[in-house]
């Protein structure tokens, strides 16, 4: 009996130990970043396509390039607040290294080695090309610094435990692109923009009970996390606009019947409007290539 108890205790310790190891942050391999040198001019387009300003500009600011943070994002798990990612060395990310930046953006790991909450779409950014990441870092260093301190998230227990995000990552991170084999260069670009940089799935795909994206219903729409209204589906069975209509919407904000975008989509259109027309056409082509009902997995 004593041996059994000891065995159970040992197994418990081993399990806890294994859990601790499994939920530990898994950083970007150094060789992936070695030798990269960023081009700030190219990074501007990456920054625009990735929609960084949409969430990180101050709530009441018209200046989208001052990344002071402070916008609130309500969810089923509590309210997240976007941090300051301006180049301020104390309150922003000006004191970070490129490796620390790369780990935050593509792995959701803070410079202190903690998990970041997936309100930050790092599972999408994980697909970002390393050169784009370097260019983005170079560009963001040129933006104005702002000394606004970060505001804490407002999360109830157990979501307040960051280690728990390690479990979440085991389930939902490192999954790669959703649409397999895009075939043409146009679709490859559209997939990269929609799935990685512009992270469309974060709002337009439904989530599981644990807040992971349901990749078996990719871009089929979801309840609005604010609790009011729904975010529309984008698969061809739900969005029957032509590819030209979609591209024009991303440029102008006008739907085919000349209604106009509202809410957070306005920020998205501001970004897409600043990208080349080929990029908007590529995203439109990607959406038209999605299967009905979003069944890709």
């Amino acid at each position, binding site marked *: 009996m004593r041996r059994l108890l000891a065995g159970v205790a040992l197994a418990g310790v081993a399990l806890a130990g294994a859990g601790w190891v499994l939920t530990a942050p898994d950083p970007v391999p150094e060789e992936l970043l070695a030798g990269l040198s960023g081009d700030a001019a190219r990074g501007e387009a990456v920054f625009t396509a990735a929609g960084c300003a949409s969430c990180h500009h101050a709530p009441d600011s018209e200046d989208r390039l001052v990344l002071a943070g402070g916008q609130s994002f309500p969810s089923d798990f509590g309210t997240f607040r976007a941090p300051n990612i301006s180049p301020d060395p104390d309150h922003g990310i000006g004191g970070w290294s490129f490796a620390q930046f790369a780990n935050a953006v593509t792995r959701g790991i803070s410079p202190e080695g903690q998990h970041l909450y997936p309100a930050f779409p790092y599972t999408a950014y994980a697909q970002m090309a390393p050169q784009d990441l370097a260019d983005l870092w170079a560009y963001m260093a040129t933006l104005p610094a702002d000394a606004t301190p970060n505001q804490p998230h407002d999360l109830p227990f157990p979501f307040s435990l960051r280690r728990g995000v390690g479990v979440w990552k085991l389930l939902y991170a490192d999954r790669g692109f959703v649409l397999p084999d895009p075939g043409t260069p146009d679709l490859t670009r559209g997939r990269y923009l929609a799935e990685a940089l512009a992270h469309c799935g974060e709002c337009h795909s439904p989530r599981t009970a644990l807040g992971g994206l349901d990749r078996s219903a990719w871009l089929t729409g979801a309840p*609005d996390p*604010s609790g*009011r*209204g*729904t*975010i*529309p589906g984008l698969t061809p069975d739900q969005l029957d606009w032509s590819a*030209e209509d979609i591209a*024009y919407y991303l*440029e*102008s*904000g*006008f739907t085919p*019947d*000349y*209604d*106009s*975008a*509202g*809410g*957070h*989509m*306005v*920020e998205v*259109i*501001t970004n897409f*409007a600043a990208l080349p027309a080929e990029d908007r056409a590529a995203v439109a082509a990607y959406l038209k290539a999605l299967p009905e009902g979003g069944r890709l997995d």
Partner: protein
Amino acid sequence: MKMTIAAAAGVALLATGALAQEQDLSGNVKARQGQFRIMAINLGILGDMAQGKTEYDAEAAQAAADTLVAVSTINQPPLWPEGSSEMDMDGTRAKAEIWDNMDDFASKWAGFGEAASAMQQVAATGQEAIGPAMGGLGGACKACHDTYRAPQ
């Protein structure tokens, strides 16, 4: 017993009061949504020409632009009474923030007026002038919807 009747009567009075008020405001909401429909129809005439979906027609473009300017001159405050936000009633996507920031809301409406006037100046000058002016109008719509229109 008397108290209960009085209380019930009071509740009934309040309820009919609330009901009457809601009915009143639905007319205001219809009116403001109507003006946005007029906008959308005329933006459609211009936008379809800009995209080459329909043939450019200087006279029709000018009429559409003139109509947009006319809509921009409609006095707005009576269409946006207190108590007509999406939090107060169904059938509207007007966010409560409008009533917290009336001055800013008014300046966003003025922004639409400026964009409509810019379109009015160029609408009859040729098809290629309409696209950029549509961009200005789209920007004005977005500037307001960003903050003051709730998602569907």
